[in-house]
């Protein structure tokens, strides 16, 4: 057992392109467990299911594979970016 502060962390989620439209915000603070696997982190981001398979998820500017269930250790203030490709030319 651990007490809550050591298991939860605040990350800053940045939404780009279509994900900003779907989530309705460009960035938000999110309290998540750590360590957390990439799939669980992805499901914490609401309303983005439609983008799966067509989005780049990055933690601290580093690509994270959603379906590989990578274990991620997050720290307070970490930047999580959701970047679907842009469709415009």
């Amino acid at each position: 057992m651990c007490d809550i502060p050591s298991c939860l962390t605040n990350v800053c989620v940045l939404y780009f392109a279509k994900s900003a439209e779907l989530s309705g915000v460009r960035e938000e603070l999110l309290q998540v467990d750590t360590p957390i696997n990439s799939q669980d982190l992805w499901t914490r981001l609401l309303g983005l299911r439609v983008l799966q398979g067509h989005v780049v998820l990055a933690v601290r500017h580093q690509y994270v594979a959603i379906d590989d269930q990578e274990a991620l250790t997050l720290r307070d203030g970490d930047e999580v970016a959701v970047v679907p490709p842009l469709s415009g030319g």
Partner: protein
Amino acid sequence: MEVTSAMADEVDYLKTQLGEKEKEIAALKTKLAAFEKNSTSVPQLLDRVTPLTPLKAKAALSNEDIMRYSRQLLLPELGVQGQLNLFKTSVLIVGCGGLGCPLAQYLAAAGIGRLGLLDYDEVELSNLHRQVLHGEENQGQTKARSAANAVRRLNSTVECVPYHLQLSPENALQLIQQYPVHSNNVPTRYLVNDACVLSGKPLVSASALRMEGQLTLYNYDGGPCYRCLYPVPPPPETVTNCSDGGVLGVVPGIMGCLQALEVLKIASGHGSSCGQQLVTFDAQSARFRSIRLRPKQLGCVVCGEEPCVTQLIDYEAFCGSAATDKCRRLNLLSKEQRITVQDYKSIVDNAEPHLLLDVRPLVEVDICNLPSSLNIPLSSLEEKKSEHMQLLQERIGQLKQQIDGVCWPPVYVICKMGNDSQKAVRILGKMSGTEVDNIKVKDICGGLMAWAQWIDPKFPQY
């Protein structure tokens, strides 16, 4: 007599019209003559892919080359060898739009050997705010031709090959094999990606929409291809393009310039540092971010160890939508749920009580609207925003009193092109009798742009 005076009016009107048309014809003839006079020196516009002669490597720079390129020759990163490398490089630009224009401009200015300029569209007034190679006088001309002319004015030593065609699985490989470096900007990304992987060429890809831009270098130096990152195409209804979403012209300008930079680094032999990276540009905060991507995937269907895509496929079927970024027309409703703009015009003319609901976003309603319309954006209907639901119920209530309850109050829904209005009709149909009073809800086919085309030519088109 009334009748003859009306006829005389009609005759006068027709004469004026005829006079105007004659003037138009004369102007077109002059324009055509001017073009034909110049056409001898302009490269021929190609409507199919033909074999090209390989570019000859130059052994040394001429004095004129040295003068023209002196400021970049001084850079140790480029130097004489880099410049000679540029001279023997061909680049294919897929799309001469908001990204393709600055890209072609800077590549030509820097002295690239050959530019393939591919576009299937014509220049329109609404392109000019971002597609900076085209001018007012080029409206109606093919973009490929217009871009080639502009490039030739800038640097006549660059060989331009304008292609007026749509990239397809039939022509893509032949085309791409002739150009070592490619850039693309249209939603034919899977097609271009696969063609680049199959012919072993890097792809410098950029995109821009609203106030955002992205740049990625695919299939370069062990980095991923487009499919490694995005194995599944997005559902067609989630794709926004420039004509729905808008874009500030300088944003594709910046991204096209970044693209030009990476192409020049690769072409000169210096190499790109953007491999395995996704660069995002947020124009609102003027911030760039660089995301380190994963390397190419062993399991990738096209660039992996056991690829199953070994030739080009049907990309429209794969993506579930047409490959051009022209507007798709939805067809969600039955005939009884739709009326034409002509029908709606007679409803207005007969002063039949009704509610006109405009479901476009506020920013578009500010551009133009029909005076009697109530604006509730589609997104508010989808989310059932309470203040909007109240407003809607209020207006339906008023209408109900007006028609004295003999039938369900008619609600006509309009948007720009007639797609969102159909979605709204579906939602309102479900709300009718539950969240709001019973209504008879119909879609106005083709939206405000059909209204502008068929009913009111003074209504702005955008």
